[in-house]
Structure formats: C-alpha cells, structure tokens
C-alpha cells in the first residue's frame, strides 16, 4: 500500500477538474500592476477575487513603513514570542488593534488561520461544547478539532436551531461556546448577530465572532458586523485577519475578558510558531491607522459593491446575497461554472471558482470580491466582460437544450 492511496477520491476529483480545463488551485499570477490588475496567462487581467477590500496592498505609506522596518529590524523574527522574545512593534500593534476594536486585550497571530486555531483551541477544552455555524471556515473547524471539545453544528445563520441545540445540551460540567462569522466568505451573507446574541444571553453561553471578511468594511468605525449591528458588548471574543482589508498577513483576537491574556501561555498555535516579521507588523500598523483615518475607503467599497451588484443582476446573474464586499454568482452546474471561470480569465477578469465540496449546500459559484481601489472604469469594464459571458452562457444553454 502506498501512503498516498488514501487520496484516491481526491485525486480523481482533481483530474476531473483538470480535464475540464480548470486548475483553480494552481493559478499563477505572473505579475501585478497595483491592487486591482495583474498579468495572468500572459494577459492583463482585472482582479475581482482577491479579498483586497480596501486596496491597501500597494499603499505607498504602507510600503514605506514595511521597507523601513525591514532595514531597521531585519527580515524575520526567527522564533516564537514565548521562546525568542516579543518585539516592541508586536506590542505596539497589539495596543493599536485593541484601541481600534475598542477592547481591553488584543493578541496577534502569525496568520488568520492560526488566530482561529489558537483562540478556539485555547478557549475551549474537552469538557466544553462548541456550537458552530454549519458554514464554518476550515480554520474554525480545525480549531474546534484541536480543542478536544464536543462540537455541535447548527443550521447556517439559524438562531432558532442554535436555541434548540443549546436547550438540549446544558453541559453543566463545562462551558458552551458559540462560533459564527460576521460576513460569510463563500456566499457573502451577513450573520443575524442580534438574534444570535439574544439566544446566547438566554443560555449563558460565550460567543466568538470571526470578522475576517467584515473588519474594515462593516460598522461606522470599520470594526465589523458586530459593530454594525450594535452588539459588540455581547460578543466575548472577536477574531480577525490581516490578510484582507489590511492587505498583509497575520491575524488577531480581541476581548474584554480579564483573563484573556492567558491564551499566550495556553494556545499552542500562538506558542509554537514564529511570530510575524517586522515588515508585516509595520505595514499592518500603517494600514490600521489608514482605515481609522479614512472612512471614505469604506464608502468607496460600498459604492463599488452596489454598482457591481446592480450591473451583474441586470445581466441576469443570480447573486447569493445583497450587495456587499463578496459578490458570489450562482451557476447551475459544475460544467457551466468551470466554463464561465475560464472564459472570464480569457476575457481578462479574475474571480474565484468555488465548487462542492468546498461550498455550502453543494452550490457552484463564481465568487467575486470588490475593492475600494477598483476605479469606476474598471467596474464598467468588468461588467462589459460579464455581459459577453452572459451572452455566451445563453448560447451554451440554447445549444445544450437543442442537443
């Protein structure tokens, strides 16, 4: 027996996709021309699938701050916070995130994935029960597994189902932790946090909200969906990432819990990995200051989201959620979706291809994300190219029907 035999089904699935002419897992960005354009397959392409919500990856001040930190502090920290020391800039960033999010404590992690892994596995233990939304991100699922807690899924964004499950599982011997996302990354729908918070209070559970996709975009101050819905005080822990609105890499968790800092000596994905490098920390600090000082960035991404959503809807595409930073188009089947994804690349538009089993409910999606940095001309151009795609899809459907 070979050690890779266990992946037989996976391998079949992959070659099936390759046969259909798509390798979404190995797309090469050959060169970049700012936050919204790249060269892909030798072609100048407009990027509509980067999660670069505020377009800060090429912000001159962020770049300068990163370069200065590289020169002054070097290329890497070469170790973990607990074994090899905390840099002053790690501390400064943590203080700034705490202030931005309006919380007493903030802990920075090396990636957003590890932020969930560390926070969830640090908060919950084998005696606890985690109630998690069924559209979970992989990092939430893996964090739950690492915790050793009993994990109960509830129906996506369904506070009544959550309520029933809490009712059935009082767990007097441990704690109960609810985990949801503010903005769901695949369909782009928003959590019903007000109702979830009401359920949480009734049952005396803890609540963690992953604002990975919402921070910088939702809320008057850009803190996320909990801020936008006015329920921050009832959210015990918020997890976020630096890899989307902040245009870098890394993650964080914030809380007002007086014992939150204990995670630094309890959460293994914090303790046993190298801390974020100086350049990353510096760009994130600058980006954070930028999004605090420039609410017009948020206004701009919402304008772009409205325009793109309206345009795509007018072309007859089925969008999975109201206008927002994530615009996912639902297509009828895998063949059509792979065709559309490839055609868009040929037309010079990059979106994400999302297929089952990676999608909720087994839907086939073209997942787009808008940026505050998209110009009106780029949005118009993207819509013109989608119009060509729509026409070709109509012809394809007509041909298939005639066959």
């Amino acid at each position: 027996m070979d050690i890779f035999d266990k992946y037989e089904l996976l391998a079949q699935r992959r070659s099936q996709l390759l046969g259909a002419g798509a390798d979404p897992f190995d797309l090469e960005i050959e060169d970049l021309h700012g936050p919204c354009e790249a060269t892909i397959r030798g072609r100048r392409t407009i990027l509509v699938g980067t999660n670069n919500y505020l377009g800060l990856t090429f912000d001159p001040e962020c770049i300068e701050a990163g370069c200065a930190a590289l020169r002054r502090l070097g290329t890497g920290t070469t170790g973990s916070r607990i074994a090899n020391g905390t840099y002053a800039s790690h501390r400064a960033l943590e203080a700034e995130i705490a202030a931005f999010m309006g919380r007493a404590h903030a802990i920075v992690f090396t990636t957003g994935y590890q932020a969930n892994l560390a926070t969830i596995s640090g908060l919950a233990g084998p005696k606890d029960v985690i109630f998690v939304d069924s559209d979970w991100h992989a990092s939430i699922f893996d964090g739950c597994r690492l915790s050793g807690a009993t994990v109960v899924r509830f129906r996506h964004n369904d506070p009544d189902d959550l309520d029933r499950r809490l009712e059935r599982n009082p767990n007097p011997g441990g704690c109960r932790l609810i985990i949801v996302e503010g903005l769901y990354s695949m369909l782009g729908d928003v959590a019903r946090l007000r109702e979830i918070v009401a359920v949480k209070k009734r049952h005396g559970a803890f609540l963690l909200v992953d604002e990975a996709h919402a921070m910088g975009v939702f809320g008057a101050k850009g803190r996320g969906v909990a801020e936008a819905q006015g329920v921050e005080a009832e959210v015990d822990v918020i997890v976020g990432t630096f890899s989307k609105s902040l245009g870098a890499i890394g993650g964080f968790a914030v809380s007002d819990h007086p014992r939150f800092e204990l995670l630094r000596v309890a959460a293994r994905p914090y303790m046993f990995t190298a801390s974020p490098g100086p350049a990353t920390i510096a760009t994130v600090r600058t980006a954070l200051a930028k999004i605090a000082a420039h609410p017009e960035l948020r206004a701009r991404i919402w304008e772009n989201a409205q325009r793109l959503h309206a345009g795509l809807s007018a072309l007859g595409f089925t969008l999975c959620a109201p206008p927002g930073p994530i615009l996912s188009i639902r297509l009828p089947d895998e063949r059509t979706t792979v065709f559309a994804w490839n055609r868009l690349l040929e037309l010079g538009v990059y979106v994400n291809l999302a297929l089952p089993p990676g999608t909720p409910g087994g839907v086939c999606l073209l997942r787009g994300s808008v940026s505050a940095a998209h110009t009106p001309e780029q949005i118009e151009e993207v819509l013109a190219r989608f119009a060509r795609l729509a026409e070709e899809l109509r012809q394809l459907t007509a041909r298939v029907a005639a066959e």
Partner: protein
Amino acid sequence: MRASRHAPAMSTPDPDRLLVEISALVARFAPAGAQLTRATELVSDLSIDSVAAMDLVMEIEERYGIDIPVNEIADLVTLGDLVDLVARRLAARS
C-alpha cells in the same frame, strides 16, 4: 419558526424500525437504487463524502430532535454504525 421546533413526541423506535427510517434518509444522499443494509459502507459503497455526511446528519438530527456531535461522525463507517449512533443519542435523550 420551523415546524420541527418541537421534536416529535415519540418513544425510541426499535432497531429495525430505526434502520428502515434512517435508510430512507440515507437514500436521498446515495446513488439511485443503491442497496442499503447495516453493512453498507457510507463512503466506499455510497460515495457519501464528508460534506454530504454533515448534511445527512443534520437531517437526522432534525428528524429525531437530537444532536450528533461532529466528533462522532468521523468514526462512522457503515450504515449500521450510523443507526447505532442515533440509537445511542436517542437513549441519552430519554
């Protein structure tokens, strides 16, 4: 509010009845006409992948008003394992 808000007030069904009922739910996730016995393997015989398994479990949970922790789903191999797991959760409830 969903109709299944209140779990059906029923006594725990006997094992044969449970097998029939759960087979009917499993059939919706399996290839048409698949043979369903206690020995049928969910992954290798029915190609029910991890995501479909989660959806199937959600249906079963709603049908019986129980919670099946994710931790226990990974251990399931056969349809019989699934029926036994549901029976255990039903017994724990009552």
